[in-house]
């Protein structure tokens, strides 16, 4: 369509237009506040003059002859009857007035110093950059502002004051903008350099004699349903300016009294000021008739809703969707379930060719309302046509090569899936679409970990790439399969969770199945080749699991409880499959599979293993209950004894302390010694009791969960069955609340365990009120801690990632930033790509073993 022009921008100048430039740039001079005549056409010389651009469809621009959307709009100008001060340059004007002589207009710096300073600026600018030069200029200018005598003509200087927002006073006498302008005009070019102004700039331009009128394209009017026109805020403001300006002209020409002219002039100044910035603190903001504040130029750029943060730094995108997520362990790891209603709005453009025309016609035939259909076609000339019941026939007729059909999302389409906060690259991955009924996105629970998602109401976003290049890129670089190994620690970020781990653990540990059961199990997780099963009636769980493994895969590792796990040629010989090998962020088994068999195979295998575990658990049955926490009477008594003994021990320490017999530990005061001793005694008791309890509840379902790492830890079990233990705040026993005691229930200065937060009951037996209260104290403390720490660490991470975002590793292993500065001479000191290592180390023996083969 249009020829590409390659040009490099060497620099950009920011500056102020001179009155002449404004007039040269303008395509119309605005003289009347009227907008439209009686027929509704724009008035020539009005604010909506058609020479300023077109905003109505069908019309052509009078200046450039182009149509709507082609014509960029053109500036106009109005001649102000009296000069007005530009509100955004008030400070600069004040500086200039203060630092120049009232009479000879020279800078209040002695001649020889001017040269010196210019040299200094030049040097600072070259060495430390633009910002430093600016600071230096500010420093010098403010130094000479308050000189009382001009070093050039020896005349006394008056004090200049700014009466905000825009009135200048010289010892109580007001300087009109005309006078101010006259002074600025006299300042010599050489002296301006001291202020940092360039040679092509004149300070008097900061006082407006002509005002530039922005093109209508940046202040379009809206036609309401009633046919009435509603003008943009900027047009309203400009109307005010033009109106007052006309009145001022008339009054001046009629020779009206000075007071009236002054008043009108002030009003003009107010309108021009609010045109630029309607939030000047000393001025009442200009309002609509309804009292709504006008949005003028500054408001368009500023703040979160302004052009920069809203439109330039932040953008919204088409072909994206957001909804609640829910789990579906039966879809593949790299799939995402998309609600059908969404898939009919999210479309994929597909180009019509000889080979797919029949296929695409079927979508068109279905139309936008029947799935899988199509919503639009795009003709080769770029025109879009909506598919409706009326246009359908016609479109089917004309559809030919080169057309595009925007068809509904179907299974297997590529989509990007994302959850905020996007802290690492696995926060946005490519999934394959699977259209499902319902209204939520479905994802395999195994990929929750990289997204840090759960299903308590989390929402996620989906983006559909719109061309082949983007789809290829997403699929090759971002597909879930390719992201399995974390670049942070070189292990798999996805893995089996909870029920899948438990299922595989039980399967490989204790289950023996009938052949038919084994086949049923395997078939349910997507295996249809059963040749791997040994030819016998009773099949061991390990053998069932081994069917999933590749035939030439060997692996030696440890399970969670430290036993050896051995896989020889795709057969699990010993050890149980638990969290240490199947879990996320742990174990080398998945890492090794990934290395040997590649991303797609690993993702597939993980999906199968996960499904197998879930199927095993569903068939075998698994539940936990209160009775899991039961202990035999003798164990209960044993634990009671231990606790009693430790309490006695603690009381003994207290007695010794009270009678002065306690000897302090080295480096600690007597009080501290007591605390440490008591805490030590009580904690020992808790650990001992916990160990005993853990042994006794060996074979309950709850301990199975803990042992295979699916959920919970031994401490949780101990707290439920044996003893909750000492509650601590900031590493100490609870010691505040009332004066000298924690609760009014205890006597003052009671240091005994139960008065200081020792909970000797367990969750099953139930807590006493005071124990419960101590538990609530530590619970609240933990809650506060997390609530306060999360935003802090989030901000810390944000600063870190922003600081490092454009660092890259060069081919010589150096880490450099965008300007080529070296940050590290060898990446991470060891030049290792962690995602290519196993848990951060290179397994040299493993590699040798692989290469040489055989003997150890």
């Amino acid at each position, binding site marked *: 369509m249009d020829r590409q022009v390659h040009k490099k921008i060497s620099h950009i100048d920011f500056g102020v237009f001179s009155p002449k430039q404004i007039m040269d740039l303008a395509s119309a001079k605005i003289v009347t506040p009227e907008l439209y005549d009686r027929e509704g056409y724009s008035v020539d010389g009005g604010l909506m003059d058609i020479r300023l651009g077109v905003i109505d469809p069908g019309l052509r621009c009078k200046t450039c002859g182009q149509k709507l959307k082609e014509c960029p709009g053109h500036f106009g100008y109005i001649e102000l009857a009296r000069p007005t001060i530009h509100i955004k340059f008030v400070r600069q004007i004040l500086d200039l007035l203060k630092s120049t002589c009232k009479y000879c207009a020279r800078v209040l710096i002695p001649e020889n110093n001017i040269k010196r300073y210019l040299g200094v600026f030049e040097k600072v600018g070259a060495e430390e950059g633009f910002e430093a030069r600016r600071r230096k200029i500010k420093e010098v200018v403010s130094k000479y502002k308050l000189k009382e005598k001009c070093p050039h003509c020896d005349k006394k200087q008056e004090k200049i004051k700014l009466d905000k927002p825009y009135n200048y006073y010289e010892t109580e006498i007001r300087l009109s903008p005309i006078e101010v302008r006259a002074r600025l005009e006299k300042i010599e070019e050489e002296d301006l350099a001291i202020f940092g102004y360039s040679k092509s700039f004149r300070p008097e331009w900061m006082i407006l004699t002509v005002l530039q009128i922005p093109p209508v394209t940046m202040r379009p009017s809206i036609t309401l349903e009633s046919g009435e026109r509603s003008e943009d805020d900027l047009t309203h403001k400009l109307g005010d300016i033009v109106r007052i300006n006309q009145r001022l002209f008339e009054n001046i020409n009629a020779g009206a009294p000075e007071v009236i002219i002054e008043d009108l002039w002030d009003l003009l100044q107010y309108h021009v000021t609010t045109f630029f910035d309607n939030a000047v603190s000393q001025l009442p903001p200009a309002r609509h008739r309804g009292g709504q504040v006008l949005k003028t130029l500054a408001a368009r750029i500023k703040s979160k809703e302004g052009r920069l943060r809203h439109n330039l730094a932040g953008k919204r995108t088409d072909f994206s969707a957001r909804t609640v997520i829910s789990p579906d362990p039966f879809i593949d790891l790299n799939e995402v379930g998309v609600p059908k209603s969404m898939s009919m709005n999210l479309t994929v453009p597909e180009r019509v060719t000889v080979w797919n025309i029949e296929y695409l016609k079927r979508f068109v035939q279905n139309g936008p309302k029947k799935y899988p259909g199509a919503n639009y076609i795009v003709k080769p000339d770029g025109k879009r046509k909506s598919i409706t019941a009326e246009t359908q026939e016609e479109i089917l007729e004309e559809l030919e090569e080169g057309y595009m059909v925007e068809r509904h999302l179907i299974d297997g389409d590529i989509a990007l899936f994302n959850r905020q906060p996007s802290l690492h690259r696995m926060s946005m991955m490519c999934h394959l679409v699977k259209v499902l009924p319902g209204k939520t996105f479905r994802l395999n629970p195994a990929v929750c970990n990289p997204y840090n998602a759960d299903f308590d109401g989390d929402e996620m976003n989906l983006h559909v790439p719109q061309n082949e290049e983007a789809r290829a890129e997403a699929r090759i670089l971002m597909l879930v399969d390719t992201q399995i190994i974390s670049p942070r620690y070189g292990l798999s970020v996805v893995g089996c969770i909870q029920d899948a781990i438990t299922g595989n653990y039980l399967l490989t540990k204790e289950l023996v199945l009938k052949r038919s059961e084994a086949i049923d199990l395997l078939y349910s997780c997507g295996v249809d080749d059963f040749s791997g099963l040994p030819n016998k009636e009773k099949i061991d769980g390990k053998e069932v699991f081994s069917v999933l493994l590749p035939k030439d895969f060997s692996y030696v590792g440890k399970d969670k409880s430290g036993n050896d796990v051995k896989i020889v040629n795709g057969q699990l010989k010993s050890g149980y499959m638990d969290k240490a090998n199947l879990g996320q962020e742990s174990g080398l088994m998945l890492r090794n599979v990934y290395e040997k068999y590649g991303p797609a195979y690993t993702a597939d295998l993980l999906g199968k293993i996960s499904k197998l575990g879930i199927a095993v658990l569903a068939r075998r049955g698994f539940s936990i209950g209160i009775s899991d926490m039961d202990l035999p009477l003798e164990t209960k008594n044993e634990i009671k004894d231990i606790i009693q003994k430790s309490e006695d021990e603690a009381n003994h320490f207290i007695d010794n302390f009270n009678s002065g017999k306690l000897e302090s530990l080295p480096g600690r005061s007597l009080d501290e010694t007591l605390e440490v001793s008591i805490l030590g005694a009580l904690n020992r008791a808790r650990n001992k009791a916990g160990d005993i309890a853990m042994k006794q509840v060996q074979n309950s379902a709850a301990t199975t969960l803990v042992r295979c790492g699916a959920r919970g830890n031994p401490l949780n079990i101990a707290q439920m069955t044996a003893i909750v233990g000492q509650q601590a705040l900031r590493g100490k026993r609870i010691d505040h609340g009332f004066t000298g005691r924690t609760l009014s229930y205890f006597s003052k200065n009671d240091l005994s365990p139960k008065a200081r937060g020792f909970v000797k009951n367990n969750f099953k037996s139930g807590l006493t009120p005071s124990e419960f209260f101590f538990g609530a104290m530590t619970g609240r403390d933990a809650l506060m801690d997390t609530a306060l720490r999360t935003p802090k660490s989030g901000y810390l991470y944000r600063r870190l990632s922003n600081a490092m975002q454009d660092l890259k590793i060069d081919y010589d292993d150096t880490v450099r930033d965008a300007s080529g*500065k070296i940050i590290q*001479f060898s990446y991470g000191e060891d*030049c290792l790509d962690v995602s290519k290592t196993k848990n951060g180390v290179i397994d040299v023996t493993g590699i040798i073993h692989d290469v040489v083969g055989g003997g150890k």
Partner: protein
Amino acid sequence: MTLDINKHHLIPKHSKLSDAEKGKFLDSYKIDIKSLPKILIEDPAIVNLKPTAGDVIKIERESKTAGITIYYRAVING
């Protein structure tokens, strides 16, 4: 008597590159002195090397992952 901080176990070994070494070093990385990390001329670890601005200091650090790793810094005036 003042303490020689270079004898402290947490201070890595600092040494100054000779002009020839410096030229070779800058050449090998194809950079000029401005792209290097900086070190202040009055840094206590290098005062006894009597550096001048523009010198390159070689720092040999102990590294957990790579044994000994070498870092370079350009001396600058404060």
